């Protein structure tokens, strides 16, 4: 039975990645996080339907437990992909700086040239745009404010804080 569950997991994950790539080709970059949430919800629904159809009938309690374990594993796969691959490509400052330098080839890049078109203004404007799209902040009469809700981005801060305490380093905030 584990082979069947793992096969289902890999198939659903592959479909998730393919759906993400196909959809993201058609949307603007600022709406990435919003659409990512939709795709994750839809892929969880798809996973559930496939699980019910494909995994053979076993004792009800075992079926529920195996469903919950495989759903948890699937979502952890998705989270690992988003943070490790997608996040790196879409929003990592370090990767962007590295790309700017690598694309200059043998000419190299000075810090002044880099800051001319990739600087704190460009970085902040992009983040503000994304946060408005996700509904975490809003703009009113030229001022920005937080929306009254918990932001998923702040979940990362909690993890950083826990690790920072454990390893006695600062998390940089």
């Amino acid at each position: 039975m584990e082979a069947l569950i793992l096969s289902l997991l890999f198939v659903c994950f592959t479909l998730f990645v393919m759906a993400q790539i196909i959809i993201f080709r058609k949307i603007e970059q600022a709406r990435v996080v919003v659409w990512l949430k939709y795709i994750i919800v839809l892929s969880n629904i798809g996973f559930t339907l496939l699980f019910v159809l494909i995994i053979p009938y076993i004792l009800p309690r075992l079926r529920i437990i195996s469903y919950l374990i495989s759903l948890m594993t699937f979502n952890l796969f998705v989270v690992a992909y988003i943070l490790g691959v997608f996040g790196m490509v879409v929003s990592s400052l370090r990767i962007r700086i590295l790309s700017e330098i690598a694309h200059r080839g043998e000419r190299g890049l000075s810090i002044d040239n880099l800051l001319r078109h990739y600087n704190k203004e460009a970085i902040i404007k992009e983040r503000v745009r994304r946060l408005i799209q996700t509904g975490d902040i809003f703009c009113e009469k030229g001022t920005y404010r937080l929306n009254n809700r918990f932001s998923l981005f702040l979940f990362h801060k909690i993890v950083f804080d826990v690790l920072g305490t454990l390893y006695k380093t600062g998390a940089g905030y």
Partner: protein
Amino acid sequence: MIYIVSSVVFFLITVSVHREVFFLVRNNPKSVVRSMIVFPVGLFIFAFISFVVIPRLQFNNPWWIMPLPFTGVILYLIFSFLFVIYFNGIYLGEASPTIALLLLLQKRHVLREKEIFEAFSDESFIGSRLQNLTDSGMVNKKRNRFYATLQGQRIVSFVDFYRNLLGWHEGG
């Protein structure tokens, strides 16, 4: 179920071991990177536990002994991968601009665009990361100009390939 619980417990044990190793080598960045070897070693040990030790245990309750050894190992791998990503963030001390922006708004409640720009510096976003790229060997600096090393170029090749799949030109 025992495979899942063992996976979580063993991962936490591995993190504890890594933490002790980290305190011994924290002043040497290359040794800190090498300390990550704890996780692949932990993977081999856990795989042995999953495929050899646990099947020999006797349990009466069928849901506790549901045979999921591969799932347990996969979970350990995912936890380790996620840990490395977050650990990288705290070790390098680089604040995420998004989180920093949200915390600033949490503290000050209302901000104009100009006030947001004034709260941050190019050094905190760009300078520190450039230094880290140089220290980690992704980039070389010669006479005030930066050049990507072979390692850096390989990473950018993968990133460009993925961005082309998405039809995007740049990230960050």
